[in-house]
């Protein structure tokens, strides 16, 4: 299991890096899916089976599919759009953000490793326990989450409508 953790971590990191650097959005989405699956494996190795399953079902199986769906709807996968993507990604653009991210990562490293305590993680927590405490302690949170989902639903419905009233030029798409 320990080995699985490290392998999955490596895969997740690699895949995530690939997500950020891909030109073709579909490839990026696929790498993102791989990354999420790897994180799901990490969850599994940490004993969070329920979270692992949810990660795949909801994240990989639904949320990312939405990305694919949108890419297909807008039909931006094929070469013209990847060329455009290359234009947007000049080498110079990488410098600042990378520096910032490296600094952040360095800070995380420092905080986590300088803490000095290395405790073992990972003991099995089954779905039932999660469910029970979710509907007892975090009941209000669940209600709020449902409100967020409803808001997202309404918002997405409104924004996704074909003809928003203030639409200037039409097009069939």
């Amino acid at each position, binding site marked *: 299991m320990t080995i699985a953790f490290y392998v999955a971590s490596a895969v997740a990191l690699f895949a995530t890096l690939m997500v950020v650097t891909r030109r073709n959005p579909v490839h990026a989405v696929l790498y993102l899916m791989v990354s999420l699956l790897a994180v799901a494996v990490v969850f599994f190795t940490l004993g969070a089976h329920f979270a692992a*399953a949810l990660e795949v079902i909801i994240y*990989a*199986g639904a949320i990312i*599919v*939405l990305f*694919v*769906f949108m890419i*297909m709807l807008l039909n931006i996968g094929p070469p013209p759009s990847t060329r455009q993507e290359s234009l947007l990604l000049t080498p110079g653009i990488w410098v600042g953000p990378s520096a910032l991210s490296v600094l952040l990562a360095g800070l995380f490293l420092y905080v986590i490793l300088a803490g000095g305590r290395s405790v073992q993680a990972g003991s099995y927590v089954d779905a039932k326990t999660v469910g029970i405490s979710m509907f007892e302690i975090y009941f209000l949170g669940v209600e709020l989450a449902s409100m967020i989902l409803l808001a997202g639903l309404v918002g997405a419905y409104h924004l996704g409508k074909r003809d928003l009233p203030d639409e200037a030029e039409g097009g069939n798409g």
Partner: protein
Amino acid sequence: MNETLGTLLIIAFVILGVLHVAPGLIWLERRLLALWQDRYGPNRVGPFGLFQVLADAIKMFFKEDWIPPFADKATFILAPCIINVTALTAFAVIPFAPGWSVVDMSVGLLFFLAMSSLGVYSVTLAGWASNNKYSLLGGLRASAQMLGYEVFMGLSLMGVVLMSGTFNLAKIVEAQQNTIWYCVPQFLGMMLFLIAGIAETHRLPFDLPEAEAELIAGFHSEYSSMKFGMFFIGEYIGITLISCLMTVLYFGGWDGPTFGISEGLALKLVQFGWFAAKTFVFLCLFILLRASFCRPRYDQLIAFGWKIMLPLSLANLLITGAALLALE
């Protein structure tokens, strides 16, 4: 060591068995369709036309494996693999008989749902990678359809989870042995799951992603040779998987009269026999559906999923929970 060997044996059994069920199903489907449509079907090659499947397989292997130059090559190849991998992986949690499963996972049902939700990538990516407008439309249809039907598939299964109190498939079977097959108390849930299952495998009447009248062959228009074969087989594996789950979740799995046999390999075989028999019935049901239904319009399909099935599955969940609370 022995345990590992046993697991390996089961894995081999599952892979080989399932992979061989698929061609058998092709033959069975053609014969049954012919029967129900009052014609012969394949009956020339071999006994009852059984070798026709073999011939088809050989033909498929030897066709030119052509990748269109305008396609996105990596994704084009990846797509058919995904459907087989996910479907076969999902078999890992199916208990064919007591102890006969690849893994006895505590969140087995969720694992199945996870795998089935990943299956959508196959169709969608195939449609996109082909870089062909019919394929793209097919892929779009598939992703929208599967997103919609996946939601209430999961919800419809929750009734079973509520009654048995576990995600573990083997335990669900045992729970049914102790009480009653869930096809009785969870009849609505079963119907919902069955419909969702058909949609997930995009079999008729939910085969709009590959509706040949509108989209040539939908998402796999550009596929040939064994890549097409993998889609073809993947579909049958999917059917088998759904049938197995129907058996496990609603019809008591391996439960059945044991004819006085009470221990050892023989018992397991009898139990597996029951399992296989029940699964076979559902396989035939799938074929019967194909023979008897016409194809709905796409918007009807989506509206049906979101506006009828989803509320029904929620109602099912609510009533089940309420009833369980009342009986406690």
